[in-house]
């Protein structure tokens, strides 16, 4: 068995969806080229943009930072990182440590914010209060709130996240199965909205396995540990089903993604005008109703007090 591109015998990956075998050097090159090509194809970044990578210290966000640093080195973009400490004991500390090390190594400024400073409560404390929803709901909503608010303050044009192919297809299937059809219209390579900083997903077409192989092949230091709250998530169940399906259908993730792209525009037309964004009456952040999702969740768990984040307006 030899590398499909250069003929080397030291093959490290077999792409079952394309039939390619690749050595370490060619594999790293194909990943970087594919990501940079997708950035161009979907117009995710333009020259002079200030891009903020949502960096957790895990494999996905570290890969985004590593590849976007190529553009920063060429002075095409301005690159910074933002790390959020949700307050997950014995888990998040390591991620933050690795994220900071990577930023130092690449010479990229890093900003760290926490749930505690913004909401006066950590995700561990929220979960200890036995709330009605799962951890991922609070974590995701509250994290996005901080990201958008701080990215605006930092004058960022784009927020780059580490969503990979598996994440994206899981989101498509989850939203379909749960009947959240409106959410399906928002899944794509970039999320544009006047009130939110544009979010981009440069790894959207890279399988999770390849992101893992990339950080290993490049020797990037990443936090490879599963979040303790993920075990209970619906996403994990869907991920397990999709991985099982990929065994006999290696192209299933790509075909689901392409299928979604075809129906997304039709859905957008159908649902046009159904959700108009306004400002949350409580915190001033974008909201579909009077209260934004973050304030709604904080209210639900009895944490919406004046001192919490009215000062954040």
């Amino acid at each position, binding site marked *: 068995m030899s590398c499909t591109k250069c003929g080397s015998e030291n093959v490290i990956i077999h792409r079952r969806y394309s039939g390619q*075998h690749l050595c370490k050097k060619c594999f790293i090159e194909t990943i970087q080229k594919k990501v940079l090509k997708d950035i161009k194809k979907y117009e995710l970044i333009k020259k002079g943009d200030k891009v903020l990578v949502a960096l957790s210290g895990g*494999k996905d966000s570290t890969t985004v930072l590593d590849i976007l640093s190529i553009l920063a080195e060429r002075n095409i973009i301005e690159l910074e990182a933002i790390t959020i400490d949700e307050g997950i004991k014995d888990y998040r500390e390591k991620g933050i440590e690795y994220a900071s090390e990577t930023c130092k190594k690449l010479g990229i400024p890093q900003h760290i914010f926490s749930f505690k400073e913004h909401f006066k409560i950590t995700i561990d404390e929220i979960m200890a209060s036995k709330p009605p929803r799962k951890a991922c709901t609070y974590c995701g909503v509250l994290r996005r709130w901080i990201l958008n608010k701080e990215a605006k303050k930092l004058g960022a044009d784009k927020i780059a996240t*580490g969503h990979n192919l598996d994440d994206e297809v899981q989101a498509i299937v989850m939203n379909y199965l749960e009947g959240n059809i409106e959410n399906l219209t928002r899944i794509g390579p970039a999320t544009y909205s006047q009130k939110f900083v544009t979010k981009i997903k440069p790894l959207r077409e890279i399988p999770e*396995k390849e992101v893992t192989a990339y950080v290993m092949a490049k020797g990037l230091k990443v936090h490879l540990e*599963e979040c303790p709250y*993920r075990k209970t998530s619906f996403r994990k169940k869907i991920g397990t089903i999709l*991985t099982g399906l990929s065994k006999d259908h290696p192209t299933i993730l790509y075909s689901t993604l392409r299928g979604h792209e075809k129906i997304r525009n039709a859905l957008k037309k159908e649902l046009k005008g159904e959700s108009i964004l306004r400002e949350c009456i409580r915190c001033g952040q974008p909201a579909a109703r009077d209260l934004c999702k973050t304030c709604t969740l904080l209210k639900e768990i009895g944490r919406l007090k004046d001192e919490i984040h009215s000062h954040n307006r």
Partner: protein
Amino acid sequence: MKFTLIIDDEKKTMKIREKLTIKDVLKDFKIPLEAVVVKKNGEIVVEEEQVNDGDIIEVIRVIYGG
């Protein structure tokens, strides 16, 4: 023939009679190929790679989020 298998932070010594590939090892543990990256003696390898006497096989699960 024996080899060392590192999986989920656990180190096991495996004794085998016949020649195996990484794919065979993963199959025994019911681990889908799509869910792991495997290192043999510190280098990433493909699932078709043979396991030899004294090898250290490290299985890294990819489903972490991050």
